[in-house]
């Protein structure tokens, strides 16, 4: 796997195809994804995870606001302890400052410990150009340096390589035959080869995890022990770090240190955490003191600190967790998911620090599953940042045709719904095109092959509404139903099943006819103005009196509840507060005695839709309902993404298909004959896949399972 950034979309798809065909990479990343989850859960169970993450976010947000004060304090404190602190405006200046320090001190040989910031500025190449020999000493970094590649993961730089490939590289480097099986022996090779380098070097180069302003202290986290050798043995030590590494106090660093190693490698703490407070004694230095330079890099960071949305990236502690849990990373690996930094944050930083053109291609490759946000050490809303980058591209470079058409069509509900009816009556069926039916106008454009696609229903839910029973004799409560395009026009059976459940529980239902698409696809396409307009139409449509606004679509629910408040602020709050997803409504608002179910002799598996389990945090309600309606059989990785992701499955069908295959494999292994879910998008993906693969598996909405299990006879 080479590490050239894609020059075009087409090239990017070629690179993705190579990654998907790399069976070693696939096996490794699959195994990693599963094992990481388990070990992470275990090591976080001992601490107050959300509270610590909240504190990191608070500290870092405040650091971003007071960046100049922190810098001044840090510089003063570090310099009174014998260090020299530099500030580099950009990558070129950072390289020049470090080359200058090297020249002034007659440095010929440099040993380096891990620093993503050095990768960011291209330091190795610059020093090499200046005739300086620079050697990576972190094992993974050394391996990728020998191969002339960049790291494919921020914490595990060589995760894409097999021991066999590593042994090959070591044979070239040492000129000796190497063991191709025994990893322990390969590690010893690195120990032996690199040991003399530490002793010969004139300069040690490191990064820093935290720059503590109150005392001018560097905190550095490592496992291999190379980091401490790098900053101890040579007479000169240069630490390069971004301005975002500044924190006010020792306590702040210690807070973040409770999360960073847990998130990075599932360790409570790394083998070595080092606090360097100034230029201490050094035998090799002519002055008897260490020559210590600290270079703090701006490279766009002060501008970022002032950005209302993107200042969040200051919270990043480079733990790499956002790659570890990302379903796309799992499929394609880090070299396909970021220019220097990889994973979710890599997509964002490629845009902010590196190349807009590369970023434009790479940022499309996010399915929006929210897994990264759920584990991020700083609680960064990564999918929102990635979405905003996409939106900026379409605003600045002009929206692609489908987005513009969607925007025009959906601005006016009557036009939009007429268009849908036209599509149904036209002989060219929607099935066979994209299948992105929840975001229907897109259905006119894409292509697909790995799953069967549903056709539009002969009669939409709104057309059937007048004939449906919706007011029980003695209603216990009154709700309004939000249909969402996909269920209104493709899966009216989901809504009809829900109507049966509501009727059985004595719930009166109103269906405001002027409701329209929730607008999520518009937001995702960057059509913010139309998204706002559509949101206002829906808020007006649901102005009438009702206790809850219930929807059977997890994506709509999350957009109505969170997206509207993001778009419109206070104006949407009363509406948003009433929105509830179907499973939570049935579980939380209707008691067991109100809705009586007769468990069916059926093995039922559950797929937790991304928007439900992460965006809305609804986890137990649907599982509890399944237990009441049938035999619930847990399956592996219930909360991993099905691969639908709205426009994603049209843009990256090759990745979408793999995610779907994995999901169905886990479900079938559970022995279930029915799979239930809470989202028509997931239904489309998984029902289509199950049909295509001819599996003995019914895929239904959870409302359909409950309707089947209604204990009518008991009433």
């Amino acid at each position: 796997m080479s590490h050239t950034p894609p020059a075009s979309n087409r090239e990017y798809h070629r690179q993705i195809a190579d990654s998907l065909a790399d069976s070693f990479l696939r096996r490794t990343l699959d195994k990693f994804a599963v094992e990481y989850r388990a070990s992470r859960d275990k090591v976080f169970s001992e601490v107050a995870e959300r509270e610590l993450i909240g504190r990191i976010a608070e500290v870092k947000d405040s650091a971003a606001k007071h960046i100049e004060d922190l810098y001044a304090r840090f510089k003063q404190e570090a310099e009174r302890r014998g260090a020299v602190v530099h500030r580099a405006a950009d990558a070129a200046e950072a390289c020049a400052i470090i080359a200058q320090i090297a020249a002034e001190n007659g440095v010929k040989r440099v040993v380096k410990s891990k620093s993503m910031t050095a990768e960011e500025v291209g330091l190795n190449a610059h020093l090499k150009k200046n005739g300086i020999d620079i050697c990576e000493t972190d094992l993974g970094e050394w391996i990728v340096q020998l191969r002339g590649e960049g790291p494919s993961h921020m914490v595990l730089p060589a995760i894409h390589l097999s021991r066999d490939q590593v042994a090959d590289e070591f044979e070239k480097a040492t000129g000796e035959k190497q063991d191709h099986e025994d990893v322990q022996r390969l590690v010893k090779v690195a120990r032996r080869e690199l040991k003399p380098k530490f002793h010969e070097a004139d300069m040690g180069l490191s990064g820093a995890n935290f720059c503590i302003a109150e005392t001018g202290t560097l905190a550095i986290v490592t496992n291999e022990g190379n980091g401490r050798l790098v900053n101890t043995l040579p007479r000169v030590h240069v630490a390069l770090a971004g301005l975002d590494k500044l924190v006010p106090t020792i306590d702040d660093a210690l807070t973040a240190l409770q999360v960073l190693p847990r998130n990075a490698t599932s360790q409570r703490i790394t083998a070595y955490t080092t606090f360097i407070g100034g230029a201490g004694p050094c035998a090799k230095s002519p002055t008897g003191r260490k020559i210590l330079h600290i270079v703090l890099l701006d490279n766009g960071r002060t501008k970022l600190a002032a950005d209302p949305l993107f200042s969040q990236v200051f919270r990043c502690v480079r733990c790499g967790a956002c790659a570890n849990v990302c379903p796309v990373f799992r499929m394609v690996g880090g070299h396909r998911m970021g220019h220097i930094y990889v994973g979710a944050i890599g997509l964002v930083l490629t845009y902010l620090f590196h190349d807009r053109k590369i970023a434009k291609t790479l940022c499309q490759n996010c399915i929006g599953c929210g897994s990264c946000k759920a584990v991020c050490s700083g609680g960064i809303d990564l999918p929102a940042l990635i979405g905003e980058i996409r939106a900026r591209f379409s605003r600045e470079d002009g929206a692609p045709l489908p987005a513009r058409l969607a925007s025009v069509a959906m601005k006016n509900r009557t036009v939009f719904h007429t268009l849908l009816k036209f599509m149904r009556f036209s002989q060219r069926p929607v099935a066979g095109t994209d299948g992105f039916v929840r975001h229907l106008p897109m259905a006119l454009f894409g292509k697909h092959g790995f799953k069967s696609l549903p056709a539009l229903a002969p009669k939409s839910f709104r057309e059937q509404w007048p004939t449906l029973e919706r007011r029980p004799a003695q209603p216990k409560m009154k709700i309004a139903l939000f249909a969402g395009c996909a269920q209104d026009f493709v899966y009216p059976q989901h809504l009809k099943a829900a109507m049966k459940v509501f009727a059985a529980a004595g719930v009166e239902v109103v269906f405001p006819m002027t409701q329209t698409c929730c607008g999520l696809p518009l937001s995702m396409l960057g059509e913010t103005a139309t998204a706002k307009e559509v949101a206002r139409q829906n808020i007006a449509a649901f102005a009438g009196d009702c206790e809850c606004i219930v929807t059977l679509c997890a994506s709509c629910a999350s957009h109505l509840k969170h997206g509207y408040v993001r778009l419109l602020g206070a104006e949407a709050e009363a509406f948003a507060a009433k929105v509830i997803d179907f499973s939570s409504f049935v579980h939380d608002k209707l008691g067991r005695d109100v809705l009586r179910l007769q468990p069916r002799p059926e093995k039922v598996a559950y797929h937790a839709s991304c928007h439900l389990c992460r965006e809305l945090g609804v986890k137990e309600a649907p599982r509890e309902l399944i237990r009441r309606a049938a035999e619930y059989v847990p399956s592996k990785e219930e909360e991993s993404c099905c691969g639908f992701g709205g426009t994603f499955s049209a843009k990256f069908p090759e990745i979408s298909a793999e995610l779907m295959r994995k999901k169905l494999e886990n479900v079938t292994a559970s022995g279930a004959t029915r799979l239930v879910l809470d989202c028509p998008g997931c239904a489309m993906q998984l029902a289509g896949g199950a049909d295509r693969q001819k599996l003995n598996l019914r895929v239904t909405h959870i409302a359909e399972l409950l309707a089947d299990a209604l204990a009518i006879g008991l009433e």
Partner: protein
Amino acid sequence: MDTEKFIERAQAVAARVSRAADEEAVAHLIAEDQTRFGAENVGVVRAACGIAETGTCVVITDDEETRLKTMLPEVSVIVLRADDIVPNLADTAAFLRERQSGDRISYTSFITGPSRTADIERVSAIGVHGPLDLHIILLEG
């Protein structure tokens, strides 16, 4: 309580832990290691405190010699008084701040288990650039 937790957590990251009742017992344990591995392969230092939550030894390594003793020899021995164990990582804040008070220059090492890597196929390997073996001698009473 903290001592037991410390031992469990240190052993979980592949440290060897011995208990010693007095200085004499400490000296005896060190001599044993020196005989077993060769005196030049054993580096001995004293910890300022320990952290139960993580099984960590906190070592003042301001001077190079002490620092190198924890890095270069294949066997690293750290003597820690059981009374100096604090419950959590966050409890070391005051100690760290004191070490930097005024113009003081310091270098503090939090050491947890022998050096390790998982950089090749995520296989855990002990002993990369630092010690292959970390022996913690807990001095009790």
